[in-house]
């Protein structure tokens, strides 16, 4: 294997996050009844004419700006012609030359090494509808057509063939998804089909300049699926070449369950799409002010946010990485901090609570942090209670359980259950005296010089106080009493 190197290029389709479709006024809502979101335009009735959704153009330009693209001012569309029932016009409105964005880049980090991947273009196009061949597992002897997705806006992003391992492809897609989610320009869920990725893979002997025979892989429905498909394909190609075989330029489908790729069609059957300029949408120039305004609207992107978290809040690189890993986590974190007075003191504990307790719970119940039963404000209150010494860290964990179960306010729980930490010395002295009286054996051991026996006595005090006694005070008072 080691004598080959891998060359990978990605084509990523992301559904643009707009309320209405890109060329008509229909809703883009996911999960609507079949054909509920259709009109004369997206169902291609005679006389219907596409109209461009400005928000879709904005989303693409925003994405382009965030990825260091050159924005081409000319906005022009083309018809890409092919017959298929899910494309009602039998052509797709897309962009040929120029795309809205040319020449961008994205930095990825694999194994601690940074690599900048060049991206060729991002263009705007419309999605196809969906053909349904079975209902509830029952195969139909006809096909049903659902045009709800037809003409939903897509951004297609094409990279240069610069990725060289399945891990790099994974890192690229993860980073891309993260940035796009920060921008809010697409929801990027591969599972819902809102992000789709086609991969071009070839291998060549190390040192060879010409690219090897290119194979296109489709049908991956998760980012890890993309990684696995590439890994399989690289191995398959190397095996084929090693055994003296030749590779065909073809399109292969990833079969996730079997973990293999299968040939779908070879290049000989390649289609001539007969592109030509879309006459219904006359090309126009984006005003400079349009692009400038979008530039101003760009949110803080993950890289910058990470630096700010490290510098501003004194977080470790590890914590910062976790917090910026999705926009929703970062938002949750900053929302929590917003409720706290002493942000410096709270920054680290809030980060810890999110990355450990909350993360574990959310993972277990498969909930995104944006829908967390523990609101950012309630988490802030909890940490505030700890920092001000009202409750102990230990009690906080118990409270957190209830906060998660019932979405309740920690201050209310503490009040209702009387869980305030006892810091009143006289109260603690009383409990200590009782425990000392009740535990002659342990007291004797301590007095005989076995200092560790104090641990057991402290434990008994804590137990008696239902965990509410301030542990530092308990320690101090016990020592005073026992040594006197």
């Amino acid at each position, binding site marked *: 294997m080691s004598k080959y190197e891998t060359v990978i290029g990605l084509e990523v389709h992301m559904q643009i996050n707009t309320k209405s479709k890109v060329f008509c006024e229909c809703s883009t809502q996911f999960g609507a009844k079949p054909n509920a979101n259709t009109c004369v335009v997206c169902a291609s009735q005679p006389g219907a004419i596409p109209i461009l959704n400005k928000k879709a153009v904005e989303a693409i330009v925003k994405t382009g700006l965030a990825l260091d693209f050159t924005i081409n001012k000319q906005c022009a569309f083309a018809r890409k012609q092919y017959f298929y029932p899910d494309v009602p016009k039998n052509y797709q409105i897309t962009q040929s030359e120029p795309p809205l964005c040319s020449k961008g880049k994205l930095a990825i980090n694999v194994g601690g090494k940074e690599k900048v991947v060049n991206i060729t273009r991002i263009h705007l196009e419309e999605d196809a509808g969906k053909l349904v061949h079975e209902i509830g597992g029952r195969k139909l002897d006809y096909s049903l057509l659902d045009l709800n997705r037809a003409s939903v806006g897509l951004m297609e992003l094409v990279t240069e063939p610069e990725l060289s391992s399945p891990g790099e492809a994974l890192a690229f897609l993860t980073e891309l998804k993260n940035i796009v989610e920060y921008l809010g320009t697409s929801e990027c869920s591969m599972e819902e089909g809102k992000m789709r990725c086609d991969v071009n893979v070839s291998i060549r002997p190390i040192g060879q300049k010409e690219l090897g025979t290119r194979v296109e892989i489709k049908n991956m429905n998760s980012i890890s699926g993309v990684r696995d498909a590439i890994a399989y394909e690289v191995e398959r190609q190397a095996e084929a070449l090693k055994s003296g075989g030749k590779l065909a330029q073809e399109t292969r489908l990833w079969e996730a369950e079997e973990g293999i790729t299968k040939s779908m069609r070879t290049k000989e059957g390649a289609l001539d799409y*007969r592109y030509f300029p879309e*006459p219904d949408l006359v090309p126009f120039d984006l005003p400079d002010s349009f692009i400038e305004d979008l530039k101003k609207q760009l949110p803080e992107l993950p890289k910058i946010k990470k630096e700010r978290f490290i510098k501003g809040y004194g977080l470790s690189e590890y914590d910062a990485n976790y917090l910026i890993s999705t926009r929703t986590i970062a938002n949750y974190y900053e929302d929590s901090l917003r409720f706290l007075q002493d942000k410096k003191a709270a920054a680290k504990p809030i980060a810890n609570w999110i990355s450990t307790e909350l993360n574990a719970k959310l993972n277990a119940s498969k909930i995104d942090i944006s829908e967390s039963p523990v609101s950012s404000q309630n988490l802030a209150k909890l940490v505030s209670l700890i920092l001000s010494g009202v409750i102990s860290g230990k009690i906080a964990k118990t409270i957190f359980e209830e906060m998660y179960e019932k979405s309740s306010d920690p201050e209310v729980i503490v009040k209702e259950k009387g869980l305030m930490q006892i810091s009143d010395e006289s109260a603690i002295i009383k409990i200590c005296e009782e425990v000392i009286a009740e535990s002659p054996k342990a007291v004797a051991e301590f007095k005989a010089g076995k200092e560790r026996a104090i641990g057991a006595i402290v434990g008994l005090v804590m137990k008696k106080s239902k965990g509410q006694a301030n542990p530092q005070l308990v320690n101090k008072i016990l020592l005073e009493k026992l040594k006197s």
Partner: protein
Amino acid sequence: MNEILKMKAKELKTKICSGELKSVDAVKACFERVREAEPKVKAFLKLNEEQSLKQAEDVDNKLKTGAKCGQLEGVPIAIKDNIMVKGETMTSASKYLEKYISPYDAMVIEKLKDAGAIFVGRTNMDEFAMGGSTETSAYQKTANPWDIERIPGGSSGGSAAAVASGMVPFALGSDTGGSIRQPAGFCGVVGYKPSYGLISRYGACALASSFDQIGTFAKNVTDAALLTSVIAGKDYRDPVCEPNERIDYANDIDNPDALKMLKIGIPKQQVDYKTDSEISKYFNDAISKMKLEGAEIVEIDVPAYKYVPALYKVIMCAEVSANIATFDGIRYGYRSPNGINLNDEYAKSRAESLGYEVKKRILFGTYVLGAKNYRRCYRQAQKVRTLLINQITEAYKKCDFIFSPATLQMPIKFGETLPEECDIFLTAANLAGLPGITVPCSFTSTGMPMGVHFMGSRFSDAKLFIAARAFEKISGFDANKRPVF
């Protein structure tokens, strides 16, 4: 013939609104004439007599209560069968759409409904407006009312023939390469195609999207202008429809000095084309008449006219091949019962329902867009189109309007072929997005009408109507003469 049918549409509307005339009587008069003329002319694919009379009655009753009178209240109109009217069939004269029911109103139909117009019927046309004789209709051949052995022209031949024979005062058509103005010339009526973008195309079955415009037929220029005033205007559903003020094109259309100082450009290239001798004669007479009124005649030079037929064919067919692709038998329209798999079903549905001319254009358009031909065919044609536009723009520095015969030949008999340069001066307007209007000029020795064509610069439509109206007054053409059946 019924006196009502001799009235201008404007007059009809005024009289209906004042109660002097009943809309019902206007509609009845139309259908009386239909009974005389239609058996021979066959202009209509569908007539809505009952429904029209009912609508007319409603109008009359409504007006009795003193209700507000719409711009075309109670006035009958015919609609070309490629324009969507909600709930009605729209065949585009194709077997493919034989049973298709429009799910919505075209923008022009919305406006006509608001204005109170009464749709008496749907007119015949070439299939999907592909043709210049109305012979490619899948349903029937329409005759030229002046000589029923001859073609009415096309593709809007039904609308032209319906107006020419006096069955309706005016009609809507569509014009992609002369489809309103050529049949208007052949049938002796006024035919107007607006500047590209003046009237919304929303709801007009697309032929070639970058040329298509809905336009108007009438017995006279004023009525064509009146109808245009009702249907023109910005529509967000057609992105090429440009913002413009609501203009009443019929108001102030009569300007006694309109021809004075007007510069009329005559293309130098006209002599390069074989022109019917009578057409030449009457055309030259028309020039003389305008000179007498004080117009200045200037020669203009547009060498690219010679490319018009070729570049029109390339671009139009390219757009046709994509636009007609949607007629695949999947969602609506004809579906072959003989398909054995998806591709076979596509092929058979189209093969069995589309006519020869349509197939020819699809094939040609597919060819010119093929990866191997795109540069030398489609892109080259677009470059020449720009050249033509530049030359015409240059010509307008010397003149206000470009003047030519509407057609270079008289209408042919059924089955004969028109030379392809017959209407190049009309097609140039589509290629350059310019407004053009055909005005009847004279009757020739055989009793057939011939027309002339004024082409203006982009969005000079209001001025174009004024010039056309001024010419109409001096042309000597008897607009009240009607074909006899």
